C-alpha cells in the first residue's frame, strides 16, 4: 500500500496525475511538465515534497557525529545555515545525498531522500555515540517547496522575515512551528518549508493564494525532475547510489579531504589518487534527439557508458543527459536515442544557470 502525504487531497482536487514514487502516491503533473517547468523558471511553482525524510540530531555530540558520517565539512556550516553533503559507506559508495541544517545550539535537522529514510536511519543508529539524541520525524512532518524568481515576493506576503540564500529560520504558523529554508532543487531562488502535518494544507493553500496574482501554480515531480537536471543536481538512486562513489559522481566540493576522519575517507582518497574507472559527466545533444535513462553512450562508435538521467531541456531546447563514462574520455560522443545515434558533447554542469 502506497503512502500518501498530508496534501494528497489537494492534489486530487487539483486534478493532478498521481504516480508511485519511492512508495508514495505523488503528483507527477497538474497540467504537463513544460508549463510547470516554465512557471518555476519565470515566476514560481509550489511542490509537495513531504515524501522526503527529516531526522533531527541533537546534543553535544551532534557535530562530531555529523562530521563522522558526512563527506562535507559540517563545521563550516554556521548556525542558521544549511549545507549539502553525501553520506558514504566504508567503500566511498553513496548511502544518500542530504541537506544538513544547523537550526539551533547543538541541534541539526537532516533532510534525506524518501526512498532512503529507513536506510539512513539505520546508518545513523549504527554510528551514533552516547549522549546523541536522534529522532526520525519523517512521518509527522510535511515539506513544501516554493521555487522560482518570485518566491520571495510571494512569501513576503505571509511572513515578516525570510532567510537569505542557504539559510534557515523558524516562525509560528497556525499554532505550529514552521521551518523556512532558503534552499531548493531547481536552480532557482526558492524556499523549502517544513511544518507538522496538521498545518500542511493551510500552508499549501496560503502560499497558492498569496501567489495567485503572479499565477503561481502547483508543480509535480515531472517538472521537479527536468528542473533539477537542468540545474545539474543529482537524483539519488538514479545518478548516484551505494555502488557509485562520491568521487565518481561528484560534485567535487562535496568531499572535504582536509577534515578529520569520516566514513569512506580512505577509500575515496585511494580512488582520488588512483585510477578512476568512471566519472559522471554531463552531455548535451548536438542533433535532434532526447536521451533517456538507460540509453547507451557511445564514444567513437563504441559503448562507453549508460545515461543515468536524460531529458529534453525545456529551456535549452535540446537533449541533455548525465552518465558515467571513463574519466578524461576524449573522442566523438553520441547517445542512442530511440534507436538512433545522436551526436552529443561533454559539457560543464549546470546545464542551465540563472541569468545566463
Amino acid at each position, binding site marked *: 500500500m502506497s503512502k500518501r502525504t498530508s496534501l494528497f487531497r489537494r492534489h486530487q482536487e487539483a486534478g493532478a496525475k498521481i504516480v508511485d514514487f519511492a512508495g508514495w502516491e505523488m503528483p507527477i503533473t497538474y497540467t504537463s511538465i513544460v508549463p510547470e517547468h516554465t512557471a518555476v523558471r519565470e515566476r514560481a511553482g509550489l511542490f509537495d515534497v513531504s515524501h522526503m525524510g527529516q531526522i533531527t540530531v541533537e546534543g553535544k555530540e551532534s557535530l562530531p557525529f555529523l562530521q563522522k558520517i558526512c563527506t562535507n565539512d559540517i563545521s563550516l556550516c554556521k548556525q542558521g545555515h544549511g549545507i549539502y553533503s553525501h553520506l558514504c559507506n566504508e567503500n566511498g559508495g553513496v548511502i544518500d545525498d542530504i541537506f544538513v541544517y544547523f537550526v539551533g545550539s547543538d541541534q541539526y535537522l537532516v533532510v534525506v531522500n524518501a526512498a532512503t529514510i529507513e536506510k539512513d536511519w539505520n546508518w545513523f543508529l549504527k554510528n551514533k555515540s552516547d549522549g546523541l539524541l536522534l529522532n526520525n520525524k519523517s512521518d509527522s512532518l510535511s515539506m513544501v517547496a516554493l521555487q522560482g524568481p518570485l518566491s520571495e515576493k510571494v512569501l513576503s506576503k505571509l511572513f515578516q522575515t525570510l532567510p537569505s540564500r542557504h539559510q534557515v529560520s523558524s516562525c509560528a504558523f497556525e499554532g505550529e512551528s514552521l521551518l523556512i529554508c532558503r534552499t531548493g532543487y531547481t536552480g532557482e531562488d526558492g524556499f523549502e518549508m517544513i511544518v507538522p502535518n496538521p498545518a500542511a494544507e493551510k500552508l499549501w493553500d496560503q502560499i497558492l493564494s498569496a501567489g495567485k496574482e503572479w499565477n503561481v501554480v502547483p508543480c509535480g515531480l515531472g517538472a521537479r525532475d527536468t528542473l533539477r537536471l537542468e540545474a545539474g543536481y543529482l537524483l539519488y538512486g538514479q545518478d548516484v547510489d551505494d555502488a557509485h562513489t562520491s568521487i565518481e559522481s561528484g560534485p567535487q566540493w562535496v568531499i572535504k579531504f582536509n577534515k578529520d576522519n569520516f566514513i569512506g575517507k580512505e577509500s575515496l582518497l585511494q580512488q582520488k589518487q588512483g585510477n578512476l574507472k568512471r566519472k559522471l559527466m554531463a552531455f548535451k545533444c548536438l542533433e*535532434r534527439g532526447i536521451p533517456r535513462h538507460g540509453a547507451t553512450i557511445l564514444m567513437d562508435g563504441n559503448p562507453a557508458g549508460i545515461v543515468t538521467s536524460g531529458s529534453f531541456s525545456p529551456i535549452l531546447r535540446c537533449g541533455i543527459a548525465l552518465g558515467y563514462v571513463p574519466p578524461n574520455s576524449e573522442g566523438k560522443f553520441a547517445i542512442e536515442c530511440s534507436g538512433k545515434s545522436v551526436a552529443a558533447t561533454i559539457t560543464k554542469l549546470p546545464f542551465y544557470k540563472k541569468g545566463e
Partner: protein
Amino acid sequence: MDDLNQIKFAKTHEWIAPDGTVGISDHAQKEITDVVFIELPQTGKTVSQESEAGTIESVKAAFPIYAPVSGQVVAVNQDLSQDPSLVNQSPYGKGWIFKLKIADSNELNSLMTHSQYQEFLKSSEPVH
C-alpha cells in the same frame, strides 16, 4: 477532421481518415503531453498494418506511432517540424502526422469507430 464519426481508431491510439490521413487521438496527446518533436516516415515508404511508422518524442518519453493500416506514405505534415505542439493543440486537425495510400481498405474494418474507441478507453489501461 470535423467529424470524428468519419475516422477509425487503432488500439494503439492512432486515427485514420477515409482519405488515409493519420494522426493520434486526443486521449493519446493528453497522455503523451508536451510533444517536442516527431520522427516522420519518409514519403514513399511502404508500411504494413501495426508496424512502426514514426516516433513522437515528448518531454517525458518516446512513443512509437504505428501504421493503422498497410499502405504507402504519400505525404507527411511538414508543419510539425516547425511546431510539433500542433499534435497537442489539434490532434484531429493541424496536428495530423502523415497520409497513407491505403493498400487494402478491408483493413479499416479491423479498427474501431469513435464510439467503440471511447468504450475501449474506459476499459483499458492508460497509454503511460
